């Protein structure tokens, strides 16, 4: 279980998170929605320990990672798979080495044949068989994202964090990624935290949806609850209208 309590975070005087509370139960898929720049990615980075809160605690399986020394934090980070917004593939390594990177650094597999099998299996899951020896610079944006996804799930993590998984991929692949997120939950019991603005994807994969606004959670609830919300802020966002309490200048 992941529990964020009273998270405050400032970047150069700009307060991004203002007392954020969020609990993520094991085995569920939670989707975090909100305007660009409202702190969704920052929240994800707090969960995995890439950022430390100015105030508040981040508990992963009852361990507060906000105060953990680097080496112990590293062992907690092994529980996570992270798909970055821009995929963040290592430019100097080919697709296969990118995907197997975590398997090697975490010493999860030592047999080269097994590593290659796992790489091929992950590539098959994201629909990109046979590109093991391609360099990231030769891939399109959508393909990079899918390789990033393959890398995130290669080590069979307990929690997978997706930072805008369907942005920049075509609608068909977007649906395939949604299926993959659902499959990961159903077959492997993975807990998924998805950050997105894609409402179709959010409704498809989510058990619960959390809307972020002004550095806190505006509303959290099941897909049905969010669809039938009475909160004007949430309503405006999910229906995608320019008029309402959220103005265009308001970054949320």
């Amino acid at each position, binding site marked *: 279980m992941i529990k964020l309590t009273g998270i405050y975070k400032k970047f150069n005087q700009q307060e991004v998170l203002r007392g954020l509370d969020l609990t993520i139960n094991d085995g569920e898929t939670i989707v975090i929605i909100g305007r660009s720049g409202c702190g969704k990615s920052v929240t994800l*980075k707090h969960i*995995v*320990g*890439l950022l430390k809160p100015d105030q508040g605690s981040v508990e992963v399986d009852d361990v507060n990672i906000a105060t953990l020394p*680097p080496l112990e934090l*590293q062992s907690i*980070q*092994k529980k*996570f*798979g*992270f798909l*970055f*917004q*821009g995929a*963040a*593939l*290592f*430019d100097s390594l080919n697709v296969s080495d990118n995907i197997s*990177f*975590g398997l090697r*650094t*975490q010493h999860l597999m030592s047999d080269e044949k097994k590593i290659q099998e796992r790489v091929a299996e992950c590539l098959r899951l994201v629909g990109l068989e046979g590109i093991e020896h391609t360099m990231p610079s030769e891939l399109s944006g959508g393909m990079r994202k899918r390789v990033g996804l393959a*890398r995130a799930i290669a*080590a069979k993590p307990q929690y997978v964090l997706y930072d805008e998984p369907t942005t920049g991929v075509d609608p068909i692949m977007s649906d395939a990624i949604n299926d993959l997120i659902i499959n990961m939950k159903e077959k492997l019991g993975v807990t998924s935290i998805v950050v997105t603005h894609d409402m179709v994807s959010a409704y498809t994969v989510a058990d619960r949806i959390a809307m972020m606004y002004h550095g806190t959670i505006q509303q959290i609830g099941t897909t049905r609850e969010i669809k039938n919300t009475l909160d004007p802020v949430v309503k405006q966002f999910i229906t995608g209208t320019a008029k309402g309490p959220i103005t265009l200048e308001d970054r949320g």
Partner: protein
Amino acid sequence: MHKHLPGESLEQKIEERLEEDKVIKFLGKYIVGIADHIGKLVLLFFQIIFWTFRRPYDFKNINKQMNEVGVNSLVVTSLTSISVGMVLALQMGAASKNILGEPLYVGTAVGFSMVKELGPVLTSIVIAGRVGAAITAELGTMRVTEQIDALYTLGANPVKYLVVPRFLSCVVMVPILTIYSNILGIVGGFFVSVYKMAIPSTRYYHDIVDFLRGKDIIHGLIKCVVFGIIIALISCYKGFTTEGGAEGVGKATTQSVVISMVLILVTDTFLTNILQFIGIG
């Protein structure tokens, strides 16, 4: 009660006071900024030391970086050191001819200058420009494209995986390149002395070996180890703290090269003084 000078109103005084405050605030911010950077650099240095001795050792990566820093810098180091050796011989020959009527102690001048000063400093500056810039640009790009964050999430420590191999390569390869540069500089001086100024080759040789002592060579080598540390630390630190996309990478790279070069020259002055004081060279 304050007495006002004639012609000076209270408003003017307040304004002056505010101006003073601004200067103090600006200076304060600047000093705190520098202290912050120095603190983080020292911290990075200790992290490097910690991760260097922690298993497993990443020989593949270290080998790759050694190749990048050392082998790939051979051509540019050769060109600069031969040229400098030649020009030193030319100048020393001309100067002693003007003063004493014949070119004297050309070998001594070339040998001492190369081994103690120009070899280490020039090699380090060339490496700071070639390798330091590349390191900052590469790590900076990795920072802004979240690759460094990705390393953390995949269970690899970026200091261990990225910085340690580059640090070791600089610390080992800068001295090796300096020795190489010393030799080439002396050879360059030899050609000018023998073929242009008609100094007998044995004289050039004895001018060097009769005066140059082991501790003079050690003096140069100690300096270039320190310069290697400076290049690696500054370039990795600047890369790791890059912000702001492609423009940020460009800025960080420029700053990294400029800071490394200035630090090399400033450190050289202090280090030469200290080494001479304790009797090394």
